[in-house]
């Protein structure tokens, strides 16, 4: 389980770093400035993630979208980690009390992602 969780965390970190760096470099190439100046309007994490993905799919995105996607990826890494552990405890270890424990964490996190 350590290997699974460890690599999920590593993947999330590496991917998000790559996205944020790519977005910053793109932004710098376009504007000549490293400081990206924009705000994230009041939203919850899910809305934020969906917006970024929609922009990518529709093809109309800029460096800020890439940066946002990087930020989202990093924020969601612990969430994915908890999700993976619920599945792992259920399917691999059949440790039902830990399915419940991690399930509670997952539920509370999910609720907070939808919080407005």
């Amino acid at each position, binding site marked *: 389980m350590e290997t699974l969780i460890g690599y999920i965390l*590593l993947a999330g970190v590496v991917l998000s770093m790559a996205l944020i*760096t790519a977005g910053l470099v793109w932004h710098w190439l376009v504007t000549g400035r490293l400081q990206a100046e924009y705000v994230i309007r*009041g939203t919850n994490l899910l809305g934020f993630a969906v917006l970024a993905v929609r922009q990518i799919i529709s093809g109309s995105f800029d460096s800020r979208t890439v940066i946002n996607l990087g930020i989202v990826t990093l924020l969601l890494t612990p969430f994915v980690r908890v999700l993976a552990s619920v599945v792992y405890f259920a399917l691999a270890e059949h440790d039902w009390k830990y399915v419940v424990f991690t399930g509670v*964490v997952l539920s509370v996190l999910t609720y907070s992602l939808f919080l407005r």
Partner: protein
Amino acid sequence: MDRKHYGAVSVISFWLLAAVSVAAGFVGAMSGMGGGIVLIPVLTFLGVDIKHAIAISIVSVIATSSGAASAYVREHITNLKIGMFLEMFTILGALTGASITLVSAQRPLVILFGIVLLASWATLFVRRQEDYQPPTEQDGVSRWLEFHGSYYDQAVGQEIEYKGVRAYIGVPCMFGAGLIAGLLGIGAGALKVLVLDLGMRLPPKVSTTTSNLIIGVTALAGTSVYLAAGLIDPGLVAPVMIGVVTGALIGTRLLVRLSNQAVREFFLIVLLALGVEMLVRGIRGG
């Protein structure tokens, strides 16, 4: 967009921000905390207002946590079951804290938190010369929860076995630690390391690395509140995240080589600094 806090953040500051973030990530990964102790004072010094600084710090905690834990978990030092069990309570505490933060008085809380930290520091400081001894007995609840483990300690070249005890203390204390983190937006790790170390008698390395794992989830619970309030500033968050992850990964390389004693001593220094910082901030009203 409030341009006030951009006045002081120019291109020079981008690199300063990144450099400070590396330091924050390093300190966080080595102490089991989130790095806010370094980040928040520097951000406010650069002209960022305290609410934005806290929001950025909370997001950086997730980065530190994921970066540090990605290494510690793979090294099998973090105790996943203890971490995942206690996470339940920290996260409930964090959500509770974040939601009542609007109606609570900040300054007395910050001062109180500072006092608690300094008292804890004193307790741990008195004990600092004691070598780690794993507890010989374990209460029934902790045993049922499977709170035992072992890790390979590079500093002594041995596999160290340990048991976690007194889960019944860990539970309410973790809720309290989460509550404070959600209320004040800082202090995710300090109390958690103390609970794991003093309360549940885990080896310092395990306490630190398990705390690193827990704080990510705790911070994530609180993030939504700040995101909804529009307080998260990507222009500042982006370089901070990169710096923090870099620093955290460097910190993990060092911690695995240190002795339990050294890890504890580093934690003591950071704990003292954090306690003083909280007292000063509470008294000054910043």
